[in-house]
């Protein structure tokens, strides 16, 4: 479950936020926000993706830059609500 979740998040991040032709590998601990892939405005679309995909509701105050900064952190956040 954990790997599948991370794989899906990673695939979405690469698909949506990494520039075409950009030579980067997004790992589970690659910083997405501090690495310049996702900015604070784009977090809204990432949050909506997670909510739509996993049928959860992430409160705005939990959608912080730190919580969205890596695939690991995002997966932990999703798990918190899917397992709730």
């Amino acid at each position, binding site marked *: 479950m954990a790997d599948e979740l991370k794989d899906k998040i990673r695939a979405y991040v690469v698909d*949506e936020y990494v*520039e075409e032709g*950009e030579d980067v590998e997004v790992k589970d601990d690659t910083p997405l926000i*501090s690495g*310049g892939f996702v900015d604070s*405005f784009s977090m809204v*679309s990432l949050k909506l993706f997670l*909510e739509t995909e996993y049928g959860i509701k992430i409160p705005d105050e939990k959608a912080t*830059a730190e919580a969205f900064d890596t695939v690991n952190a995002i997966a932990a956040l999703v798990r918190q609500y899917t397992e709730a």
Partner: protein
Amino acid sequence: MSNIGSYDKRRKDFDWSQAREELAYDDAPTKNIAYFLAERNCERGLGDKVALIWENAAGDATRQFTFDQLRLYGNAYAQLLRDLGVAPGERVCIFMDKIPDLYFSFVGILKAGAIAQPLFSAFREDSLFTRLENAQTTAVLTMKRLAGRVRHIRDKLPALKHVIVVDAGGAEAREGETHFDVYAAEPVEAFDIYPAGEETPSVLHYTSGTTGAPKGALHVHGSLVAQYITAKWVLDLRDDDVYWCTADPGWVTGTSYGIIGPWALGTTQLVLELGFMPERWYAAIEKYRVTVWYSAPTAIRLLMREGAEIVRRHDLGSLRHLVSVGEPLNPEAVIWSEDVYGLPFHDSFWQTETGCIVISNYPGMRIKAGSMGKPFPGIEAAVLDAKTFRPVKAGTVGLIALRPGWPAMFRQYWRNEETYHNKFVNGWYICGDRATVDEDGYYWFVGRDDDVINTGGHLVGPFEIESALLEHPAVAESAAVGKPDPVNLEVVKAFVALKPGYEANDKTRLDIINFVRKKLSPIAMPQEIEFMASMPKTRSGKIMRRLLKARETGEEIGDTSTLEDD
């Protein structure tokens, strides 16, 4: 004692010649801004002083550059442009993240006599194209990460002769592109700086309006006089300060007060490549002993949300003056910052067009929490009646207006003379914002006077968003408005009527949101989409954006029949 001392005395005695004298402006060999940022500081004995402390996005590398290095790297960029044949007056776009090259190339472009056109690195193809096409930009300085966006639109930009990638190292350049490594380039000890006059164009910044494409506000080298003295009096910058302006130079704050004003004063600046991230921000203040911090209300409200505990984990004792800009700063934020940092944020007001701070709270002056403050000495401001364009009585809502003539004021909208002239009425420049002024002369922001959306301090035009929405295959009709938001002041909300065969669900919503983000920018991307069966329209078939906006703001719209005739 602050630099400004008594606001009332300064206001009474003020003359721009004071700033000129301090800069030895009239005796300077050139009025070129770059000279004042680099050469003049070296001549004043500040060559070895740190001009820029830069930390990379990952936070694992810091570099420092002196004013002499700023001069030399600026020379290298200027020489590059001259060697490529970029002529004075041509527009050279800086399309980069906040890396040191952004700052060096800004100085270099001005030294070469070209016009610097900084664009926010979050812009995607359509936003980039609109601005490069309008400016007839001849060169773009960019990075590997962003070059693809320029390549995608290059065929449609016949004026664009040079694409220069600054971080490609020794890799071979693609056909039609140039690689430049400022650190490896032949040092240029002396460069023959373009002899700019006060009215020579310097910087072109794009800003959004209600209708049509974004407009390029053109500034001149003479703006320095106002940017220098406002940085000195509002930001209260002194010789031993470490100053941090969190704005990106893709926006006017990032150039006027993230480059020009502070460096004209010889101030050491901190630049973080990183965007907003509370823990890292506080760590940076502590690590680099930041003394003066210029930030934005959205960031401050987000820091409020993070709470006081995270503040207590850091030593922020170096801070001595806090200033805010971009949107009105709510009273709670002023009070909170005083409680938590022991210092209040001082709100300041200005725009791309004004080029410098025009209304502000000053160190030493009583802050009325939630107020924009008072006009800068030398700036005549008023609140005008929207119909007669005459000053209103205290407490009455009207339009913020400024008497033209201060040095940093924009000189034109690029290739858009009519819109420029429409900004002036009865000898006043009309800012496009509504406010009141109280009995004590403090200004209080009420809202925009048009449909432009202010989200997180960035202005976004609804027309640009609506046009992008209509390009999505599912969208039949659209309207974009600013929805009030506790953190960002406003967020973009789109109303969408779908074409037959498309379902109004979260998947469609996400698809449309991502579509706009990739076409324009994350800032212009709707944060919310409401599906409607059809849009309210005027008799002539125009979508009633104002009605939709009133629904969001809770504003009484009254009889809609007048709107129907719009």
